[in-house]
């Protein structure tokens, strides 16, 4: 088992005829992850690597009713209309890889998604990998060997990270140490994202293959603090090992931002201390360095 995506996932790629869209299609095909169709307005009738392109999302859904997820690879200024179209067409999970989407657009898309009971992943989410089952987006760059799928009835850990690169780095470390991964999620580093750490707790609690959760957070925003609150509120019973980066940010003036759009220096909520403290109080193991993650997970098994 896994969360968010699995062998039943069938993806539509919006913006598939663009350079990045074509590349991600190639990677998803290499990992055997099913992509049924693409959408680029004005390019209907074309094919990319054997996958048909349509002018609109409804047209694609009409021909490929098995599509249950859309992955959006369009420039930031077109994200709002592309996601609007996917939601209006009834797609319940929309993944947005584009970086630099204005917050106003993200928030209005979230309002709409909530009304339609749909889920947005991202913006600026590199993707999701459920090793052995499905690899969405650029996660892993078409190279599934860096992940270790759980055995048929065995367990693994879920990895949640704002940063796609860090998600990948941690997965590589886990694989090297022989720790299987159920799902690796890049939630995105924007100040407002569609799926936060806490939004995944419910799914993680019921996924019986997921034995523990690794969270890679960073300064800015409140997603780590909200995760801590929800762990307590939902009585989340699985072990959580967390790492929060941003020590150096404490030397910068408040309001400075760097790296991800959501990484904004603050002395109160959003600071590294606030996040570490909240997670510790909620029962998570907070490590000072990513290299301690493996050690802590190994200890959990004993």
């Amino acid at each position, binding site marked *: 088992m896994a969360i968010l995506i699995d062998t039943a996932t069938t993806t539509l790629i919006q913006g598939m005829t663009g350079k*990045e869209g074509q*590349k*991600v299609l190639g*990677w998803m095909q290499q990992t055997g992850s099913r992509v049924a169709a693409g959408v680029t307005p004005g390019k209907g009738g074309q094919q990319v690597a054997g996958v048909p392109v349509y002018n609109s999302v409804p047209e694609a859904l009409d021909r490929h009713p098995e599509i249950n997820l859309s992955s959006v690879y369009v*420039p*930031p*200024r077109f994200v709002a209309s592309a996601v609007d179209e996917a939601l209006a067409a009834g797609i319940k999970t929309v993944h947005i890889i584009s970086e*630099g*989407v*204005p*917050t*106003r657009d993200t*928030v*209005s898309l*979230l*309002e709409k998604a909530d009304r339609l009971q749909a889920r947005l992943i991202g913006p600026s989410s590199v*993707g999701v990998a459920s090793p052995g089952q499905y690899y969405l987006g*650029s*996660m*892993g*760059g078409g*190279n599934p*060997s*860096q992940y270790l799928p759980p055995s048929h009835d065995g367990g693994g850990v879920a990895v949640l990270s*704002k*940063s*796609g*690169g*860090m998600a*990948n*780095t941690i997965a*590589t470390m886990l*694989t*090297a*140490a022989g720790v299987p991964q159920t799902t690796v999620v890049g939630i995105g580093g924007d*100040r407002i*994202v569609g799926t936060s750490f806490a939004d995944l707790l419910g799914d993680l609690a019921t996924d019986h293959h997921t034995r523990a959760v690794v969270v*890679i957070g*960073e*300064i800015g*925003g409140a997603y780590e603090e909200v995760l801590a609150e929800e762990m307590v509120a939902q009585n989340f019973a699985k072990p959580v090992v967390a790492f929060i*980066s*941003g*020590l*150096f940010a404490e*030397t*910068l*003036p408040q*309001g*400075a*931002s*760097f*790296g*991800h759009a959501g*990484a904004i220096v603050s002395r*109160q909520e*959003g600071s590294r201390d606030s996040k570490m403290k909240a997670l510790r109080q909620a029962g998570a193991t907070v490590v000072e*360095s*990513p*290299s301690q993650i493996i050690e802590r997970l190994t200890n959990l098994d004993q």
Partner: protein
Amino acid sequence: MLLTEAEGKALLRQAGLHTPTGLVIESPAELEAAGAPPVPLPAYVKAQVLHGNRGRQGLVKRVSNHAELAETVRVMLGRSDQHGQSVRSLLIEPLVETNQLEYLSLGYDTRQRRLVARYSPQGGQGMDDRGHSLTIVELESRRSPTAFPPQPELLPIVTALHQVITSHDAVLVEVNPLAQTEQGWVCLDTKVELEDSASFRHPEWQQYGQRSNLGRPETERERQAHLASRRDHRGVAGESFIEFEGGDIGVMASGGGASILAMDALMAAGLRPANYTEYSGNPTREKVATLAKVVLSIPNLKGLYVVGSNANFTDIYETLSGVVDGLLASGYAHQPGFVMLVRRGGPRWQEAFAMVRERLADTAIAFTLLGPEYPIVDTATKLREMMTAPTQRSGPPQRSIPTPPSTSTPPCDGHSD
């Protein structure tokens, strides 16, 4: 991008809100030209800097006669705030009679993930310490509010601020204090922050020029890096660039998350970065080379720290080629004892490392190449070792052999060759 009070107030007035009728001047001569007195006295003279706490820094002064006004203008212009930002313009506004100062702001909240209004019946200075007493009301981003329960009388003001924040792609519009007067509600001070990533639909923002969010004017290198990053739409390279005084390690990190980790590691190892910057999202070789040149134009560097996560889709060969292009074009290529540490994984990383070894073979640079299994946090201590190693070398530069990605053998920091 933060706006000055005067710029923010212009946006508020466009939305139909009231502000005191003031005068913006950039020199004492402009004050004289405006006649005496240019605004009714007593008045406030307020430095137009981008940061708060102006009152405590003496950058907001009350004046009661023209002589005081002229003297205050003369003294305040050219002064600097606590962040070193010099005072280039002043806003002179008449005193507003009021006995009620409130607080109202609209902004996007990462907790609610919605547009929210924050309200307090007590506004004025020191709001940071009173954050907990704010009432928070969720608003719809695409629809004007129809009610404002905490203070129904303020609905028209909330509606106008809703228009400001959505039509100008602001992430924050704060009015503090908001004063109740006989003529209605008046915005006495405001803080407006526009969202840089929405600049594609706001050509009018060019009037504001480039601004740093560091509480000081942008340095020339910060400006250059920023421009370079925006030259094309593929990836970023220098979008964030912060120059630090007194550092001697040039930093070229990769990945929003890993770059923060890399900086943390440098600090923990007691090393002094001369800059922070980051490239990611598969930028072109040329874009990375331009950024490398900006970093390596910093004088007195002892090393270059090129550290990133295991990339998902950034082509490591292309981007590291850009780093080497920049390095070979800089004076550091011939500086004995100059060190470079690279830690990377991702598409074509092995090819990339072979390229680095070949191109740097005949230079004075001592380099170490670390593959995707080497922990990012340990790279800084590695760099420190390289810097303290004897600089005299008899053979070819220090070499390394990368480990393959799917084994757990120790990383390469090799002294092979």
